């Protein structure tokens, strides 16, 4: 699941439409939209709203593969409608900074400085927004740094100023950039997929097989040992299901677990017949 956090309805609208998200009825106090792959929440403006909504989303739905803050930002010279991915977020008030690992090559990253109100005196080094620092602070409490990203669309610059930006114009800008934003989002998601270890044999998971506790009286220490031995058993490519038959030939649970361990210690894996 990919969680998308957006401050304004005007910023969310075209994303909702392109991703074909449906509104959730029971998501008060936030407006939340979902499909089977994405969850989008409209947080309201400002760092605090963004931080609260991020925490709420985690509390309500738990972990996600990716947490992305999408929204508008100002810049002194960048072209309106251009898209930037944050590799650094600064909190304008406290001066605190966070670096975001960018795992995708060939994209244009930038520094997002989060301020309390639309910035008139922009530095040409930073993009300015009002939510990213609240987002990252809350997201870092619930997931890993690599799974947190902030994608901004330039909505105003020194020529096209934020004072002149109305909701309709903002919607137009976001709509025009939505395809690029979603492509970037997909690239980030794909880069996380590379994290799957290619050298790992496709062994069956340790969840496979039977529940020893239902067949034998088992202490918590034995349960812990059983789980670890089951992991190792699967990792070397041996069948957990076949253990069920062996279990009957061992009088006690300890005997059975000792036998499993001795098998793992005495029989090497064949790399010619690696699972």
């Amino acid at each position, binding site marked *: 699941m990919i969680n998308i956090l957006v401050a304004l309805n005007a910023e969310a609208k075209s994303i909702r439409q392109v991703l074909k998200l449906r509104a959730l009825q029971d998501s008060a106090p936030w407006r939340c939209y979902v499909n089977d792959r994405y969850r989008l929440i409209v947080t309201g403006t400002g760092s605090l709203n963004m931080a609260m909504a991020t925490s709420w989303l985690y509390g309500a739905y738990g972990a996600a593969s990716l947490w992305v803050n999408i929204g508008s930002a100002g810049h002194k010279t960048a072209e309106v409608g251009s898209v930037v991915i944050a*590799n650094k977020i600064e909190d304008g008030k406290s001066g605190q900074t966070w670096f975001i690992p960018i795992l995708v090559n060939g994209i244009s990253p930038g520094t997002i400085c989060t301020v309390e109100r639309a910035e008139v005196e922009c530095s040409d080094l930073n993009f300015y927004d009002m939510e990213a620092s609240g987002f990252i602070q809350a997201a870092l409490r619930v997931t890993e740094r690599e799974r947190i990203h902030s994608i901004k669309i330039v909505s105003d610059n020194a020529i096209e100023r934020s004072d002149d930006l109305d909701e309709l114009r903002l919607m137009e800008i976001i709509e025009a950039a939505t395809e690029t934003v979603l492509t970037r989002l997909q690239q980030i998601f794909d880069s996380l997929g590379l*994290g799957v270890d290619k050298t790992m044999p496709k062994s069956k998971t340790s969840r496979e097989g039977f529940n020893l506790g239902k067949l034998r009286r088992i202490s918590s220490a034995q349960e812990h040992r059983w789980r670890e031995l089951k992991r190792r058993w699967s*990792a070397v490519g041996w069948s957990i299901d076949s253990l069920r038959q062996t279990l009957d030939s061992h009088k006690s649970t300890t005997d059975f677990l000792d036998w499993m361990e001795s098998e793992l*210690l005495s029989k090497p894996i064949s790399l010619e017949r690696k699972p």
Partner: protein
Amino acid sequence: MVTQVYIEEAVRHHARTAKLLEHYSGKPHLYLERHQEVFNPRGQNFRLQKQNPSLIIAEKHGTRIHSAPPAYGTGGEQHYYFSHMLNCVYDCRYCFLQGMYRSANYLVFVNFEDFVKDIDATVEAAGDSEVWFYSGYDCDSLAFEPITGFAEFFIPKFSQWPNAILELRTKSTQIRALLQMQPLDNVVIAFSLNSDAIASNIEERAPSIEKRLDAMYKLQQAGWKVAARLDPLIWYAEFEQGYENLIQRMVEQLDCEALHSVSLGSFRLPDGFFKILAKLYPGHWLFASGIQAREGQHGYTEKVTELLLDYCEEKVKQSMPSTKIYRHQ
């Protein structure tokens, strides 16, 4: 492939920083106060970073020369290691670095001159004793050579310290700089070798054994002292055939009598590192087969360890004197 470059403000204008940035000119770069802001903070995912790491250019503060772990060496009286870089470009499944750091980013320290001062002080303090300095504990010594110029800088320095020996540990074939230098008698280039099956299965991104042996041969031809590190030996059903084949190829391709040393060690990790690695790769056979905890380490049983070491030692002995063979357990 490096995705972006972080630079500590303190080394922003350092000549080696400029060289590194020239190499990565197309990559975004960011300045920071201390490398700890991006190296090893909490909440990082080592595996995700390892796929596309960033480069961090920094200054090494504090202790730069460390006592080498027990049984690391091959003779000599005092053993130290130093690391101009943390983390490795290769992705060997058994590597303890995965358990040591939360971050997979490459951290390069550019203040080489400070390392030299500390080495000089250590040599001075040792008097007439033989002192060994190892590089390649926290990184591969040569893998980044074309970019960092590490060996090119450090090796000539050792000509001024005859009682100091530098050992560069590597799997890399980046030996061009060495071939252009005058070999020094107190420098050993030690290559980690393993069976083909292990190299192709769990030494991801590392050069093939064929290429490593070729690099060793070229260095020997050029007059360098070369050593072989058969460590970690891995226990698998076909290990006899695999290691016999490796040793046979060493005999055929290298001047084994001229090898500085061959060290043997079975797969073992400190308990804490092993647990982290088993958590990172719960489905990997390496952390499941034949492993038990003993004396603060996770490794093979005593019987398996002896089996591996005895077998390989016996094979190596057939081609070189046993005084040059070292067993590490």
